């Protein structure tokens, strides 16, 4: 992974000093509340319902074991012993003291971490595929490009006060695991007919109040022009985005108002002016950054032999077999596998992880996966480079640690925002819904039988829980001060991304498990063979679900 040089380190340390001074001035009454607000947000600091929340940046989800131990230490020392993985691959602490935040940032800087631009109306953390670099279907590793974007976007002087937040995602595969179609900018690494690497550029996707699938504004951008093109897009947006109404301020609204063609034209004209400036990337720089993402020294292993052994183990041990089936992803190197550690056991808020678990996972990473860990936008963790022959041992330890629930990609592997338990913007709680559903659907055989199924929960329109792109999406709504839940069906964030359709009137919290059960029943009754939920939905449409859920009781 990328290792800071003295420049990177200096920038982060100077940031700590700057933020300490801002906090001191605020506490001394020299910096007004409304002026401190955007400054602290640009450093990931929210004031929530109960306490401040500090969001730490995890660039493109990649962490090392040393950083994990530091997070464990912070959770123990400054928080209540846990932290939370967000749907943007970042990490949140829910209970820090405002006065201590500069100290926390100082500690983070020691391990090359920070909270820069994790909130506020600026360019946020760039996200990517959690299997970047090890995926079998990858054209090129997206992480060096994410790092190049990270550096370009960090304290970009022109784009720190945009009309609204701005999110970029990069994927290096044909199938999309980074949800690039629902980002302000989505970049897909592609090759042109001459075999040159570049990017397909999408803009104006997004969830939130007005969910939109992004539009392609350029089929092929030669790679060396990445930063100048991003500058051009951002400049057009910064100059012309709506600043009067925050609900109309995202770039998607501008793109839609102008049409993607006009927007693309504006970007291209801006780009004409700046494309041949020194920001054009050099091969030297691209290779320097790529040099941090070379493959670890994999052993040459016999895949067949490893598979036979795994088969044997799973025949003897059904629980291990299930874990293999759900929590393991194929690796491009023979004899290796990527392991997803589930942070979705029943009874724990999805994505929460304790200090003790953080330490255990750090040890596992050191022992089995070259000391690296990845945070996923599904709020789980990945050890990406595990030898198949180590899987059984790893599973036993993961099980003891409480993160081997074999539910990845299933109904109970829900995406869930912090919701009304923590977030001051919430209309409704989301964590208790997740828990009620996990309790209702605790029969793993039933859950396996349902197969791949995404269920996403957001506590309000801001859609941090990505409810629009869940096969089943649940949205907290406020009805005259009471918490209600709207259900959407048919969303997907895969390469054929679709937004869900609203089922109908919303439900009270207690009704939710039964509503979901009825939906699942309709799916099971109607599916052909092993057809997935999303495919059945696309075939039969909303009506049968609607009829069943809203049928009058006899």
């Amino acid at each position: 992974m990328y290792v800071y040089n003295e420049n990177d380190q200096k920038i982060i340390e100077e940031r700590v000093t700057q933020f300490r001074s801002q906090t001191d001035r605020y506490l001394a009454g020299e910096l007004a509340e409304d002026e401190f607000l955007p400054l602290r947000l640009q450093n990931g600091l929210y004031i929530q319902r109960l306490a401040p929340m500090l969001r730490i940046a995890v660039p493109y989800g990649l962490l090392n074991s040393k950083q994990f131990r530091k997070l464990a230490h912070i959770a123990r020392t400054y928080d209540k012993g846990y932290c939370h993985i967000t749907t943007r691959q970042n990490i949140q602490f829910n209970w820090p003291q405002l006065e201590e935040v500069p100290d926390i940032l100082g500690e983070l800087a020691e391990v090359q971490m920070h909270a820069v631009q994790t909130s506020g109306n600026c360019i946020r953390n760039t996200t990517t595929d959690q299997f970047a670099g090890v995926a079998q279907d990858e054209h090129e590793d997206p992480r060096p490009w994410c790092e190049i974007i990270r550096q370009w976007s960090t304290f970009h002087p022109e784009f720190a006060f945009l009309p609204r937040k701005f999110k970029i995602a990069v994927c290096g595969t044909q199938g999309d695991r980074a949800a690039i179609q629902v980002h302000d900018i989505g970049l897909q690494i592609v090759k042109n007919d001459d075999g040159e690497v570049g990017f397909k550029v999408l803009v104006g996707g997004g969830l939130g109040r007005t969910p939109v699938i992004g539009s392609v504004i350029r089929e092929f951008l030669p790679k060396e022009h990445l930063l100048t093109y991003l500058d051009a897009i951002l400049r057009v947006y910064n100059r012309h985005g709506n600043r009067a109404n925050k609900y109309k301020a995202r770039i998607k609204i501008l793109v839609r108002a102008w049409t993607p063609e006009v927007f693309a034209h504006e970007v291209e004209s801006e780009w004409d002016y700046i494309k041949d400036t020194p920001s054009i990337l050099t091969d030297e720089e691209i290779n320097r950054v790529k040099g941090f993402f070379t493959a670890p020294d994999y052993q040459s292993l016999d895949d067949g032999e490893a598979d036979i052994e795994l088969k044997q183990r799973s025949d003897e041990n059904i629980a291990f077999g299930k874990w293999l089936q759900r929590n393991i992803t194929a690796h491009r190197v023979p004899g290796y596998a990527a392991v997803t550690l589930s942070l979705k056991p029943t009874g724990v808020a999805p994505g929460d992880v304790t200090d003790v678990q953080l330490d255990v996972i750090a040890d596992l990473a050191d022992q089995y996966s070259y000391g690296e860990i990845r945070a996923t936008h599904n709020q789980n963790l990945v050890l990406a480079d595990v030898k198949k022959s180590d899987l059984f041992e790893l599973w036993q330890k993961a099980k003891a640690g409480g993160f081997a629930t074999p539910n990845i990609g299933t109904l109970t592997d829900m995406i869930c925002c912090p919701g009304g338990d923590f977030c001051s913007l919430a209309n409704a709680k989301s964590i208790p819904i997740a828990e009620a559903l996990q309790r209702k659907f605790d029969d793993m055989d039933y859950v396996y039988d349902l197969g791949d199924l995404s269920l996403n929960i957001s506590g309000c329109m801001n859609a941090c829980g990505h409810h629009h792109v869940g096969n089943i999406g649940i949205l907290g709504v406020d009805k005259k001060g009471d918490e209600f839940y709207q259900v959407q069906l048919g969303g997907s964030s895969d390469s054929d991304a679709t937004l869900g359709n609203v089922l109908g009137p919303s439900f009270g919290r207690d009704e939710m498990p039964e509503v979901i059960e009825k939906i699942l029943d309709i799916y099971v009754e109607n599916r052909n063979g092993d057809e997935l939920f999303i495919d059945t939905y696309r075939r039969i449409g909303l009506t049968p679900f609607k009829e069943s859920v809203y049928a009058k009781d006899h």
Partner: protein
Amino acid sequence: MPKIIKGSQVVDDSWVIIPKDFSGELPRAKVLLPMQYWLDNKEALNLQCAGLWIDSDEDVDAVGLEANQFPLIAVNFPTFVDGRGFSIGRLLKERYEFNGQLRAIGNAIRDQLFYLKRCGFDSFDLKDGIDLDAAAASLNDFSVTYQSSADQPEPLFRRS
């Protein structure tokens, strides 16, 4: 006399900002004309003692390469979170090759000085009541930067 930050010094300043809805005779002083007023009266004006000010929602391209007839151009920040002025500054300096004094006026805050400087601003008229000497320290919040910008055309990866 009002004080501003110029370069990194706190200095007296005598420029008078002419409001957008101005009509009548201009005062005998160093005046900052509203952009639209200048566009409308260009031919008739004697520009000897005039600078220009541009609001955040105005189109700097309308000034374009004529920028250099002014010794000073100010960009207004109606609120400090209105970041359009940063783009206006860079366009003036980098595209329209403006080499006079570029000033931030309105409600920009101390914590933006570093960004403003990088976008080509070299003088800063902050709100009344701010300790300008202390504020000027924020011009140097960072000693390293990644991107190219108005004050540094080379991105970090090209600097040696």
